[in-house]
């Protein structure tokens, strides 16, 4: 088969699968699963093929929105190192998660819906990866949003799930508002929506630095929403209402990374833009990664802990984009993070299954002997995440922190501190869940999950360990070989050990409840409450006000008022018809008088 068709097949196969499942197999659980997995596998296979033949370049485009001579938005694919790597990551992980889901979702009523949505997501995600222009990226950007909305709301009967889905979509829309506006500004300045075109004509904009800054920052809003950076991070923890595989695929490994990927995609623009842009990005990332870490330390829901950790890690990547001279640095961390965070989530998933959909870590405990395999994987993932030397996270995270050190000392210390937090809450998780005595009957009788779930775990565990080795990463990234300053190594190692020690100190004796309580962290700095207040009071109040105005002023006073006036006039006029002949004669005479005066003497 002509390899030039590979990207198209990769892109559209999932869509076809989604349609197929939705239309033909609305009741067939097994078949739906098979179709879904097969599709994912196919895309994965083809992605590897594409990855392994770098000379393959596709220039063909499908015209989508085309106004001759004025404006054209094609559907086209761009195949460079960036998208090749991303393709591989996405499809591989997706395949594993698809398989894992078959086990995790067993017995669920909405399996076809689930797989259809997963396929739709895969389609959209691949669209983002392959997009060769901004509008196309925006299209799939929206589509991943909606598929995430559907998947988070998979258990739609649960009010919490329904709300979470809605919130995720809306928060992303807020981000996309800025994103699209940024796209519009860049288009107006460069006259093109193609990434290539924008980069070529960028010189035109540099005359208006302010304009360019605004444009870049607005585009960055897209990242804020999609990659859950402060202050738009609130939706990601709530999205944990969705099934765990979804959390691992969308909300840990791939979708949330799309924001970073987008920044990497427009990296040249960011470089060309004034320094301010990258400073802002850097600070946002730094703050996010630290604050999210703080919040993670006080969560009790196993998935929420991981969710905050994801936010924090995304923060690292954003920093990486801002501080590193090449986008590969951030992409490298995205790459490794995808594997180990996905792994962690899948472990959490199997734990949750084992304890009958219990997610509160304070009802678990002592699972190490009962499900050793899962525990092993989880440890691997944790070590990778905390950046233990020899594990993938070590390489990628250190690189970012190193560049941060080069760029800005404060940011360096913040990121280092975040590393400390990371190791603390991860080991806290480990100790509370696996260490000591079970804290409930479910935890008592927990047992290792079936093979269909454990096999993906093991594969991912391998990846999580090995993905960082230079021997591996050199095939994927062209990383700069700068000498990493010792201070960085020292600080990070200290952070790791410090976190571990602190966690062990507090939780190794497996207390029944959390010995430390920091309401500020537990309540996520009350940011969510602030947003709730804003939506309820601000938006709701404004809405009610304007509705009142519409009802009583515009409609009531103006429209109905006018009508009433006419009606009343008629009512008054009719009472001139007294029915009395003498009165009529008088009116007649008066009329004559008026008329004659008007005619003769005016």
């Amino acid at each position, binding site marked *: 088969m002509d390899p030039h068709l590979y990207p198209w097949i990769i892109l559209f196969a999932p869509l076809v699968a989604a349609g197929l499942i939705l239309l033909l197999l609305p009741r067939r659980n097994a078949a739906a699963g098979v179709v879904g997995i097969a599709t994912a596998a196919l895309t994965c296979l083809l992605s590897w093929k594409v990855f392994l033949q770098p000379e393959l370049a596709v220039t063909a485009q499908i015209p*989508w929105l085309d*106004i001759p001579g004025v*404006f054209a938005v094609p559907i086209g694919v761009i195949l460079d190192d960036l998208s090749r790597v991303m393709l591989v990551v996405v499809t591989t992980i997706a395949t594993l998660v698809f398989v894992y889901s078959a086990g995790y979702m067993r017995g669920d009523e909405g399996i076809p819906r689930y797989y259809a949505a997963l396929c739709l997501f895969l389609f959209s995600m691949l669209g983002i990866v392959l997009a060769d222009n901004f509008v196309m990226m925006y299209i799939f950007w929206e589509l991943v949003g909606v598929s995430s909305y559907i998947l988070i709301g998979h258990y739609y*009967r649960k009010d919490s799930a329904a709300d979470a889905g809605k919130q995720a979509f809306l928060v992303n829309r807020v981000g996309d508002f800025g994103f699209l506006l940024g796209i*519009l500004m860049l288009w107006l300045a460069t006259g093109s929506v193609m990434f290539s075109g924008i980069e070529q004509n960028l010189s035109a904009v540099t005359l208006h630095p302010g304009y360019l800054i605004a444009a870049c920052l607005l585009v960055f809003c897209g990242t804020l929403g999609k990659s859950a950076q402060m202050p738009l991070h609130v939706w990601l923890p709530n999205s944990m209402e969705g099934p765990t595989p979804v959390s691992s695929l969308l909300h840990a490994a791939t979708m949330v990374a799309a924001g970073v990927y987008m920044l990497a995609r427009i990296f040249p623009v960011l470089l060309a833009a004034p320094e301010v842009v990258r400073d802002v990005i850097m600070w946002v990332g730094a703050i996010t990664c630290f604050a999210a870490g703080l919040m993670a330390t006080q969560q009790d829901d196993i998935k929420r802990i991981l969710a905050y950790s994801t936010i924090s890690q995304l923060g690292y990547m954003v920093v990486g984009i801002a501080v590193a001279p090449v986008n590969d640095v951030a992409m490298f961390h995205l790459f490794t993070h995808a594997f180990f965070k996905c792994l962690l989530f899948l472990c959490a998933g199997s734990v949750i299954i084992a304890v009958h959909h219990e997610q509160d870590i304070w009802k678990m405990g002592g699972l190490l002997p009962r499900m050793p395999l899962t525990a092993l994987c989880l440890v691997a993932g944790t070590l990778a995440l905390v950046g233990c030397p020899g594990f993938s996270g070590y390489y990628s995270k250190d690189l970012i922190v190193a560049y941060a050190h080069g760029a800005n000392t404060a940011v360096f210390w913040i990121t280092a501190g975040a590393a400390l937090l990371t190791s603390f809450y991860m080991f806290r998780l480990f100790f509370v869940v696996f260490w000591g005595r079970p804290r409930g009957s479910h935890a008592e009788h927990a047992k290792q999950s079936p093979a269909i779930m454990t096999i993906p775990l093991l594969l991912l565990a391998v990846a999580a360990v090995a993905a960082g080795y230079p021997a591996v990463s050199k095939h994927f990234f062209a990383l700069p070989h700068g000498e990493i300053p010792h201070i960085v190594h020292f600080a990070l190692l200290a952070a790791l050990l410090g976190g571990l020690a602190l966690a062990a100190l507090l939780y190794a004796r497996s207390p029944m409840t959390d010995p430390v309580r920091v309401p500020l962290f537990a309540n996520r700095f009350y940011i969510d409450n602030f947003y709730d207040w804003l939506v309820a009071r601000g938006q709701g109040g*404004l809405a009610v006000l304007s509705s009142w105005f519409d009802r009583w002023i515009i409609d009531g006073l103006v429209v109905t008022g006018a009508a009433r006036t006419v009606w009343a006039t008629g009512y008054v006029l009719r009472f001139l018809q007294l029915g009395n002949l003498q009165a009529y004669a008088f009116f007649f005479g008066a009329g004559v008088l008026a008329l004659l005066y008007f005619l003769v003497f005016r």
Partner: protein
Amino acid sequence: MSPLLSLILIPLVTAAFCMAGSAPRRISLFGAAANLILSLYLLASYNIEIGGFQFVSENALFPAYGISFSLGADGLSLVLLLLSTLVTFAAVWVTPKDVKFGGMFYACLLLISSGAIGAFSSIDLFFFYAFHELALIPTFLLIGIWGSGERQRIAWKVTLYLAFGSFILLLGLIGLWLAVPEGLRTMDIRLLQQLGYAGLLAPGPAVYLLLLFGFGILIALFPFHTWAPEAYASAPAPAAMLHAGVLKKFGLYGLLRLAVPIFPAEIQQFAHLLLILLLGNILYVGFVTIAQKRLDLMLGYSSVMHMGYAFLGLAALNQLGLGGMALMLFAHGLTIAALFALCGEINRRTGTLEFAQLGGLAGVTPKLGLLFGFAAMASVGLPGFASFASEILIFFGAFGRGAVGGFNWFQTATALSLWGVVISAIYMLRAYRRIFWGSRGSAVNDDLNDIAGGTRWAVILLIAALLLTGFRPGLLLDYLNPVFAYLPQ
């Protein structure tokens, strides 16, 4: 007989048969289907290379005034004709079989349809106006007899409001006609457009404002919008589909037909006013929409809100904006029609549209939930639906009027309109979550039957059309682009 004439006459004749009596549903379904097929045939047989008005037929009625019954269709008309026939077919199809006074009900629907078709396909000013008025009385009857809630008060309000609007419009048209230099006096829209291009026709701002507000009232331009939501809330679902989906588009069509070619200068002159008003539509009405507690009212307000985007396209006055506007007429027509159809279905099952009493409906009627989900997503402008393509075009068109480095009126307006996209997501998702997700509402119980039969297929038809044109907007843009190709960039 010219195909367009038969396109107008088929509904009329069918309506007459319905009045006469037997099996009105079957007859009108047949008639609507025939019309749909005919309009598709017209689209197919329209020659895009040649462009311009085709299938033209003229017979002069009153030379002194230049009135002649002439029909013709260019790309724009054809797209709207397709919209009309599609929605009519769907509306007839979703009509409940047990509707009372069936004959008259279908007759009214078909009359509205035929009026809209006539307006879209006449190239004579007089009939362009007259055909639209044909729909006024059927609306009055539909709301007054079959409406819900305060049907009588609302029927009065709507009819009088629209009558008033169309008389303002009439004044505008008279002014336009009088502005034609003596000797060239004509009501032929093609000639008027030619004169407009040639700059021989300068009726001046007053006439433009008359047209803007005359049409504006019909389109529910802020602040003349208050008739619409109540009307759609009260009207029976098929009537709401036709009125919101097709009839309301007449105003925008008229602006595209007359204002754009003849009043480009005035549109520029009053662009700021227009921008302010349309922001009223998008933001102010958007917030009003958020505050609604009933689905039907919410949909009514949302349809008002979306008109704001169309006006944004008009204000942009370039090929992008106008193309997007034309595309939006089509997309929004189908979307709102589907939504109202489903709204009617929900009402028939649960007997209420109060969010407070609904909830968890998707568990009981999954297909209904799925279809509503599609329609709602189309309404919030999700990519893949024609709505998205049209909005994108409009936004790019309007923003394109901006200046690099600065941030002028158009850019500001576009930015604020973009926020409207967020607003529409807010209320649509909230409605979906309140009705279909979450825990069961008081009006929802297990023995509600899922959507089925004609309604289901009608809605699927509408959504399929939306998806098709969303994936390949070219299908319609190929017809629309030539219409605005003359515009300067």
